[in-house]
């Protein structure tokens, strides 16, 4: 690309600051017992990536099995275990904590001018809980897996399978508490730790998005926890609350499960939306169009997100009137997302746009999330949901929003803040290539699934009628490309740790507080409490700062 905004310091003289959060203390214990939000973020980043690749390898197995109509690679029950673990790992151990636990953890204190999250020990505890849950999940896989689907549908999960439902449930339960503590910590931090001058409407939209997501984490997650407890007790002693033979109602489980899991999809997407607000502003050098609208739409998504859960149960036997209400509310919750998309689009208007890697991922996000979101509306419309539900249309929908949306945003964010986290730049050319490969591979993988779904191919099928094969082959081929697209960043980002160009404080000329300190930052973030005296995304302020040539590194 010809025009960029990257402004790196003179590489021949530049140094990574000697004292920073990475070098402050050494030794494995200094990491495992750290209270520093930045180090915990790094711990999360490493462990999350690990789980992502396990989930990805399972996805590879799914796609390989679906290459042919018969069940030739694995038996049906193996296939069932594979997609269950794929879903469980990807959702609970990758996507829910992805952006919040890494970028959120790293950046929220920096962005609001605080020295740390309000509860550093709880923050570390939530990482340990996450790891404990993760190990349990891996153990479950090793011990023979579980085949209930990630939704744990009763009475299948309570009375009809004899796989490791209990350990998986416990793993999810523990991971849930990790998520609760993260959310709780964020809310307290955002309320109580903002630096002087940092009013609510000067907060970066990233922080708003995390605030909204945290509300969901705190209020929705406990409900899935109790649902899991009930499933466990049903399985072990047969309490009968979900057992139709004893007078219980299996649909009650669905209510409790989706009361969490619908808000959970917004837990997954909102932080990603926060990332997009930051990147799109930085790379078009403009304040986000309609700041307040974007901020409030995050909160609106969080609030409305609580009222729509039963749209996952339209044909499951809830009352028709409830269907009506929940379908209507689903339409309402879709609107704030549309508002955001259009505001981001108009942020580009009259900007001065450059196309660095984070921006490419951002464009990927906008296109794919729009498709994914709009197909969500197909599912939220009660009539068409009858035809589309439980088919590959859903699989395509949620991969578009989760992989095309959130994963793209995650990668955008990782690239964007990589210089801040490590002090070094990633290699631009190859990462742009990776972004493009991901985009192409993604569409190849998941677009055919919309057609498959409309044609009626059910999800969670190890074998399928032969006429669906062609589209499945496309999908599998695309997944291979996609896999490459995800492996590349791992390689070049690792490479850049040692060989990347020195980034300097603010390689993107971005306005956030986090960019005004050295990279990598000091353990205590700021030497003195900062004072916020300008609006968020104030590029004019930044210009004036540059003119004054104020250096901020304390190193």
């Amino acid at each position, binding site marked *: 690309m010809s025009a960029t905004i990257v402004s790196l310091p003179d590489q021949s003289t530049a140094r990574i600051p000697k004292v920073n959060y990475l070098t402050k203390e050494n030794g494995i214990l200094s990491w495992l017992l750290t209270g520093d939000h930045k180090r915990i973020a790094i711990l999360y980043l490493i462990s999350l990536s690990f789980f992502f690749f396990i989930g990805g390898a399972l996805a590879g197995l799914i796609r390989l099995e679906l290459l042919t109509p018969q069940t030739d690679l694995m038996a049906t029950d193996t296939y069932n275990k594979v997609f269950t673990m794929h879903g469980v790992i990807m959702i609970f151990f990758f996507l829910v904590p992805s952006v919040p636990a890494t970028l959120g953890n790293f950046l929220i204190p920096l962005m609001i001018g605080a020295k740390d999250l309000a509860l550093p020990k709880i923050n570390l505890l939530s990482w340990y809980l996450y790891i404990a849950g993760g190990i349990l999940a891996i153990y479950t896989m090793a011990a023979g897996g579980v085949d209930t689907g990630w939704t744990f549908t009763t009475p299948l999960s309570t009375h009809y399978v004899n796989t490791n439902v209990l350990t998986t449930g416990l793993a999810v339960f523990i991971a849930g508490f990790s998520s609760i503590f993260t959310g709780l910590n964020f809310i307290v931090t955002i309320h109580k730790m903002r630096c002087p001058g940092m009013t609510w409407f000067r907060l970066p939209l990233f922080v708003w998005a995390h605030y909204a997501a945290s509300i969901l984490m705190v209020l929705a997650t*406990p409900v899935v926890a109790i649902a899991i407890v009930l499933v466990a*007790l049903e399985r072990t002693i047969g309490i009968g609350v979900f057992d139709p033979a004893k007078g219980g109602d299996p649909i009650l489980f669905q209510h409790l499960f989706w009361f969490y899991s619908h808000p959970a999809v917004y837990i997954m997407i909102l932080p990603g939306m926060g990332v997009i607000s930051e990147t799109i502003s930085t790379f078009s050098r403009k304040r986000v169009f309609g700041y307040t609208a974007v901020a409030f739409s995050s909160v609106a998504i969080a609030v409305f997100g609580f009222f729509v859960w039963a749209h996952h149960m339209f044909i499951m036997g809830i009352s028709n009137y409830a269907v009506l209400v929940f379908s209507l509310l689903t339409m309402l919750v879709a609107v704030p997302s549309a508002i955001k998309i259009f505001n981001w689009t108009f942020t580009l208007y009259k900007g001065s746009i450059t196309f660095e890697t984070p921006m490419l991922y951002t464009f990927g996000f906008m296109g794919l999330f729009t498709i994914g979101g709009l197909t969500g509306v197909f599912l939220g419309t009660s009539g068409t949901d009858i035809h589309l539900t439980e088919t590959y249309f859903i699989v395509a929908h949620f991969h578009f929003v989760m992989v095309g949306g959130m994963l793209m945003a995650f990668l955008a964010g990782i690239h964007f803040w990589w210089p801040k986290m490590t002090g070094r730049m990633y290699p631009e050319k190859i990462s742009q290539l990776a972004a493009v490969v991901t985009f192409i591979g993604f569409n190849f993988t998941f677009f055919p699934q919309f057609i498959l779904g409309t044609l009626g191919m059910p999800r969670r099928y190890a074998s399928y009628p032969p006429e669906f094969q062609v589209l499945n082959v496309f999908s599998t081929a695309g997944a291979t490309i996609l896999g490459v697209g995800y492996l590349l960043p791992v390689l070049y980002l690792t490479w850049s740790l040692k060989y990347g160009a020195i980034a300097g404080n603010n390689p993107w000329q971005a306005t956030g507080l986090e960019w005004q300190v050295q990279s990598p930052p000091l353990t205590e973030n700021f030497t003195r409490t900062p*004072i916020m005296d300008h609006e968020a995304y104030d590029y004019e302020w930044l210009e004036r700062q540059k003119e004054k040539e104020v250096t901020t590194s304390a190193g």
Partner: protein
Amino acid sequence: MPDSTAIAHGAHETGSNTHDEHPPYLRHHFESTEQQADAAGFAMWLFLLTEVMFFGGLFTAYLIYRNWYYPAFVSGSHQLNVVWGTLNTLVLIISSFTMAMGVWCAETGRRRGLVLSLSLTLILGLGFLGIKSIEYAEKIEKHHVPGFHYSLQSFLDPQSDRAVFSEYHDKPLMLDMARHTEVYFSLYFLMTGMHALHMIIGIGILGFMIFRARAGAYTSGHVTFVENFGLYWHFVDIIWIYLFALLYLISRH
């Protein structure tokens, strides 16, 4: 001062409310003790929200099945002992009061008062659990624990359960409805069990607090921990207030 006041210059010491002396319990990342206490209190409230939602799932289940199987819930409820239940409610309310007194003692720096209040709270908490276990034992005796040899005897043939029958003259339930009493007892054990679990955790923390309070840990200004524990204890009390009304007092006339 123009723009340069920005982050670059950090400026005025620590903003508005500067504290000269830094008490030892002030964590490094907080500006002031107020900020720290505020944050901790707020965090506690948020934690209580998760607890509300956790019990929320159980209350939802309760309301649904009570609606569906009302006769079973009535007969099930008659198996509970109102006297024990009321007594327990009183015990818990009083313990909530002593806890509140404890917080007051801490806030006003009364060490002995604090130790006394906390100890009373602990004793009352144990008393609650004691009464609860008497009740549980009775259920186990009558085979009213769901799952394990659950017995329908008292509901199919109330006369066999003299004590309860003489008081309420329950008509025998038909087999299908009688079976649904198991759902009632599931919810009973779940809700009271979950509540008891919270009590046990609370009592554990109380023990720790008494130990520390005797050393004067909470009476020298740093009362956040006591206050937050107080919130927890009162919350557990509130849950019981509802459990008592919902589980014990169904159609007692």
